[in-house]
C-alpha cells in the first residue's frame, strides 16, 4: 500500500513539473529572449492561461503527501522552512505578474510585471532543483551535533547555506555546490521545456530563434548532467545500488537520455509536439531516476545516529491508506476526464484567444 501511494504521489508530482514546468520555462525564456512587446504578450498569455490549473497539481501532491506520509510531510516542510516559504512567495509574485501585466497599457507597468514573472519563474526552477538536490543528498536528521541529537530523529532544520557550501560536511545547508548544480539542471531543463511550449502554442517572432536556443541549452544540459553524475556518487554513495539490484529501473535514466539525445536534433524535428514530448521525457526521466535511485528511502540521513526516512517509517495507517485508495482511484479517473475535455477544447495556438478580464 505504501508503494502504491509512493507511485501515485510520484506521478502527481511529475505531472506537476511537466505542466507547471512549461510555464516556469516560458517565464525563463521570456526573461532572456523576448524583446518585442508582441512576443512578451503572447508568451505571458501562453503561461497565464494555464498556470492556475497546473498549480492545482502541486496542491494535490501536497495533500496526498500529507495524507499518506504525514511524518515525512511534517519533517520536510518544517526542516526546509525558509526555502519553502520563499518558494510560496515566489509563486505569489509569479501569479501577480501573469495576472496583472495586461491590466494597464503603460509600458512601465508591463515591464515591472514581466520582470516579476520572469525572475520568479527562474528562481522557482532553481529552487525546485535545489530541493531535489537536497532530497538526494540527505540531511542531518535529528540535528546531530557531536553525537547529540537536538531533536527527535525525524526532525531537522536546515539553514539556507553553510559557510563551506559543501554537500560533504556534517551539516550542509540548503544551498551547496551540489544542490546548485541540480538547481541549474532544473533551470536549463525547464527553459528547454518552456521554449518548446512557446513554439508549440504561439506564433511569436522568436520561435525560429528558440530552436537554436534549445540546441545550445541542450549542450549545457548534457555537460551539467555528466558533471552531476560524476559527483552524485560522492554525495550519495548508495545511489547506484538500486539500479544494480533491479536493472529494470534503468528504464528511467534511459527515458531521460532519450529526451536529451533527441533534443540535439531539434532543428530537424518537423512536428513541434514531438519536440515538446522530448523535453517532457527529460523531466519525467529526471525525476523518476532520482526517486528510483533512493527508493524506498525518501530522505536519507547523513549521520549514523538516525535512520533514513523511508516510505515505511513515515506512512499513515494501513486502513487509512486503503480507504484512500478507493477514493483516490475515483478522483484520479475524474481528473483524467476533466483534463481530456479541457485539452480538447483549448488545443491549438493561443495567440488570438481572449485573455484577461
Amino acid at each position, binding site marked *: 500500500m505504501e508503494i502504491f501511494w509512493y507511485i501515485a504521489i510520484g506521478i502527481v508530482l511529475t505531472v506537476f513539473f511537466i505542466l507547471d514546468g512549461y510555464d516556469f520555462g516560458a517565464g525563463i525564456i521570456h526573461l532572456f529572449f523576448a524583446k518585442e512587446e508582441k512576443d512578451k504578450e503572447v508568451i505571458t498569455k501562453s503561461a497565464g492561461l494555464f498556470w492556475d490549473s497546473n498549480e*492545482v497539481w502541486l*496542491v494535490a501532491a501536497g495533500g496526498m503527501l*500529507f495524507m499518506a506520509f*504525514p511524518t515525512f510531510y511534517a519533517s520536510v516542510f518544517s526542516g526546509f522552512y525558509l526555502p519553502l516559504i520563499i518558494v*510560496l512567495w515566489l*509563486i505569489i509574485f509569479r501569479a501577480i505578474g501573469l495576472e496583472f501585466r495586461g491590466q494597464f497599457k503603460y509600458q512601465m507597468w508591463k515591464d515591472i510585471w514581466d520582470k516579476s514573472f520572469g525572475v520568479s519563474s527562474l528562481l522557482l526552477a532553481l529552487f525546485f532543483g535545489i530541493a531535489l538536490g537536497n532530497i538526494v543528498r540527505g540531511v542531518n536528521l535529528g540535528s546531530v551535533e557531536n553525537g547529540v541529537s537536538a531533536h527527535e530523529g525525524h526532525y531537522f532544520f536546515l539553514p539556507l547555506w553553510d559557510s563551506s557550501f559543501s554537500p560533504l560536511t556534517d551539516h550542509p545547508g540548503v544551498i551547496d555546490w551540489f544542490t546548485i548544480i541540480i538547481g541549474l539542471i532544473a533551470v536549463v531543463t525547464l527553459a528547454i521545456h518552456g521554449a518548446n511550449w512557446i513554439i508549440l502554442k504561439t506564433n511569436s517572432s522568436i520561435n525560429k530563434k528558440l530552436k537554436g536556443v534549445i540546441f545550445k541549452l541542450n549542450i549545457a544540459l548534457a555537460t551539467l548532467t555528466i558533471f552531476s553524475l560524476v559527483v552524485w556518487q560522492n554525495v550519495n554513495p548508495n545511489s547506484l545500488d538500486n539500479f544494480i539490484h533491479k536493472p529494470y529501473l534503468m528504464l528511467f535514466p534511459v527515458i531521460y537520455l532519450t529526451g536529451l539525445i533527441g533534443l540535439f536534433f531539434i532543428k530537424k524535428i518537423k512536428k513541434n509536439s514531438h519536440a515538446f514530448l522530448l523535453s517532457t521525457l527529460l523531466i519525467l526521466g529526471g525525476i523518476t531516476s532520482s526517486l528510483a535511485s533512493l527508493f524506498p528511502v525518501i530522505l536519507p540521513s547523513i549521520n549514523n545516529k538516525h535512520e533514513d526516512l523511508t516510505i515505511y517509517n513515515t506512512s499513515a495507517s494501513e486502513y487509512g491508506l486503503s480507504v484512500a485508495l478507493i477514493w483516490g482511484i475515483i*478522483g484520479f479517473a475524474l*481528473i483524467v476526464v476533466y*483534463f481530456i475535455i479541457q485539452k480538447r477544447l483549448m488545443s491549438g495556438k493561443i495567440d488570438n484567444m481572449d485573455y484577461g*478580464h
Partner: protein
Amino acid sequence: MEDMLFYDRLQFAFTITFHYIFPQLTMGLSLMIVYFKWKYLRNKIEKYNNAAKFFMKIFAINFTMGVVTGIPMEFQFGTNWAKFSELTGGIIGQTLAMEGMFSFFLESSFLALFIFGEKLMGQKLHFLTGFLVFLGSWASGWFILATNAWMQHPVGYEILDNGKFVLDNFSALFTNPWLLPAFLHNQMASVVTSAFVMASIGAFYILRDKHSEYGRLFLKTGVIFGLISSVLVAFPTGDWNAKNVAKHQPGAFAAMEGIFETEDAGAEIVLIGQPNMVEKKLDNKIAVPNILSFLTYQEWHRQIPGMDQFEEDELPDNIPALYYSYHIMVGLGTIFIGVMALALFFLWRKKLYNMKSLLWTIMFLVPFPYIANITGWYTAELGRQPYLVYGLLRTSDGISPTVSSGNTLFTLLGFVALYMLLGLLFLVLVGKTINHGPTPQKH
C-alpha cells in the same frame, strides 16, 4: 517555546484571515452565477447571460487570489505545525487530499472552460460548466469543514501509544454531528457575502446612473438572496451550531456568551458588555434574563455552566477575543436581516431604486459580511483553544519543534508585506472590472 507558539499562531491567523476573504465570495457567488445562467437558459434575455459572465470575471479574480493565498495554507500545516501534521495527518490528510482531488481540479478546469468556451460549447454546456464550478467550490467548503469538524469534535480515530491519531472509521469523518450544521452555516454565510457584494455593486450603478439596467438587476437579486441567506445563517443553521457548541464544548460556550458565573435559575443573554478578566465579570452589561437557557434548551430555568465550572487550562486562552468575535458576528447578522428585510419591503413597494439613503447604506455595508464571516471563524477557532484537536491535542504541542520564533517572525512580516501588495492590486483589479461594467466589449 512560548514565543514560537505565539508567532506560529499569529502567522496562521493572519494568512488564513486574508485567504478567507476570497473563498467566502467565490462559494456564494458561484451559486448566484448559476442562478443567472439558469434564468438566461429559460428566458433568453441577454441581460442575464451578461450578468453571469460579469460575475464570473469577479469570481475569477477572487479565485486566483484564493489559489495563491491558499497554497501557503496547506504548506503551513507542515512548515509551522509539523507535530500536529505528524500526529493527525493520517486523518485530516484524508479530507485535505480529497479537497485537492475532488474540488480544486473540478473548479479550475471548468472555470477556464466557462470563461473561454461559451462559443465552443453552446449554452446548455456553458450552464453545465458554471454548475460544475459551483459544485467544485462548495465541495471545497465541505472538505475543509469536515477537516475542521474533526478538530472541533474528533470522531472515527484511535490513538496509538506514540500519540499518533490513526483513522478507524472513514465514514465517521463525514457523518460527524459537527459537520453538517457547520457546513450549512458557513455556506449560507458565504451567500450573504456574495449577495451583499452583488447588491452593493447594483446600488453603486444606480447611484452613479451608469449601467443602471444591470444595477437594478444586481440590486434586486442581491437583496432577495441576501435576505434569504441572512435568515438561514441565523436560523436554523446558527442556532444549530450554538447548540452543538453548548453540548460538546461547554467551556467555549460560556466564554462566547460571557457567562462568568453559573446562575442556577437560568442563564441570561448578554447584548452588550466588556469582559473584565481581572474581576472575572462583564463591565457595563446589558442582558436579558433567562433567554440564553431558552434559546439553547427551550427551558427558561435550565442551568448553563459558567466559566467558574471549568479549570483555567481547559478554557479558551483569549476569552475577550472570543467573546467579541462572537458578539460582532451575531450583531452584524442581525443588522443584515434588518437591512435586507427593509430593502425587500421597498423593492416590493417599487420604491427601492429611488431611495438614495438605503442605496448608500447597502453600498457601504459591503465590508461587514466579510467581517461577520471572519469573526464567525474566529469564534470557532478561539473557542476550540487551548486545543488543536478538542480535548486531545493541545495547541502548544502541535508546533514545529525545529522552527525558531525568529524565523516565523521573519516569514510573518514577509507575508504581511506581500499580502498588502496583493490586497492593493486586488482592489485595483476588482474596481476596474466593476467600473467597466457588465456590458459586453465590442471588438
